[in-house]
């Protein structure tokens, strides 16, 4: 389906707003996409947003940037895709740049240091929660948990880089597919 009626300016404005409104990124941004692209602009259906999101999640990179490129491509073409990606990145780029110049020299300011002393353990809890959620969602037996523990241990010990671990995981997944038992139900 083509949407030649979509112009560059509203496209950029919409993605600029998405970039400014989506906190945390990833799955947390999905409602913001829907509010703007489905409810306000009627450019996409909720199903199309969900599908685009799933595709953007399965290729490398930043999901929101991928989403902007994918949607821009679909609505207007290559030029729109690039413009949408720039528009979605600009708010966070400018806000962070402004913050970095302000905070940069004040890491030891009393109030900033106090807030950060509470924020640091919260960040760690969020990362632990993300690991647990991902495992709960995608593991269906105890074997992957063991694999995760082994891989995490190797990485923590500094014996393996994250990229190497990712490549090994992908290679194991792919070889399990290549050498899967034929004419048989999938084994757990």
């Amino acid at each position, binding site marked *: 389906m083509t949407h030649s009626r979509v112009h560059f300016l509203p496209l950029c404005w919409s993605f600029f707003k998405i*970039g400014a409104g989506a906190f*945390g*990124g*990833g799955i947390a941004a999905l409602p913001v996409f829907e509010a703007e692209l489905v409810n306000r602009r009627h450019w996409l259906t909720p199903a199309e947003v969900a599908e685009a999101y799933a*595709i*953007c999640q*399965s*290729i*490398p990179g*930043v*999901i929101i*940037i*991928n989403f902007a490129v994918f949607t821009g*491509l679909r609505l207007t073409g290559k030029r729109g*895709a690039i413009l949408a990606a720039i528009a979605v*990145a600009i*708010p*966070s780029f400018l*806000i*962070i*740049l402004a*913050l*970095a110049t302000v905070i*940069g020299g004040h*890491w030891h300011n009393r109030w900033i240091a*106090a*807030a*950060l002393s*509470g*924020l*640091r*353990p*919260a960040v*760690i809890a*969020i*990362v632990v*929660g*993300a*690991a647990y959620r*991902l495992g709960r969602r*995608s*593991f269906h037996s105890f074997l*992957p948990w063991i*694999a*995760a523990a082994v*891989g*995490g*241990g*190797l990485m923590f010990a500094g014996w393996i*880089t*994250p990229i190497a*671990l*990712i490549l090994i*995981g*992908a290679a*194991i*997944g*792919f070889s*399990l*597919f290549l050498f899967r038992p034929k004419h048989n139900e999938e084994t757990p």
Partner: protein
Amino acid sequence: MSLYLLLFWTFFKISLFCIGGGYNMIPLMQHEMAAQGWLPADRFMDMLAISEVTPGPMAVNLATFSGYQVAGVFGSFVATLGVCLPGAIILLALGSIALRLRDRPAFRATMKGLMPALVGLLSATALRLWMSNLPEGTWVPSPVTAVVFSVALAIILWKKPHPLQIMLGAAVVGILFSLIPA
């Protein structure tokens, strides 16, 4: 290699190997920042905290912030460009092939194999951040760390709060703790 080129390449590489977005990029970034000697784990954690409470995709926030810390305004630009490009190039090059990739059994199997690696990476990174947040010369966390970490984790596992709610609460608790006379 010039610093800008190295920054660009580092963030391009991080993004290229990050599948699933969001938090999956944290271990890659933390590792590279420490390996290049650009940011120690505790300063990385501070930037992570700020990236969580400011609008916009977390990965872009982190790249902009790290780039600025390493090489100023132009550094933040090349780092952001580096983190955005891989996905954009792949989508523009693949076009409609990307649409069908997800339904391929081989692709799904590969993704399935990736999951334990990602969970392991996130856990290892959490442990590294935890270690870097311990007071010097002890294994006992500070009171504010113990309280915020356990309460935040309980809330995160119990329900699904928006990360922003957790972060705002944690900042308030941090400030309150600092007001207690030692």
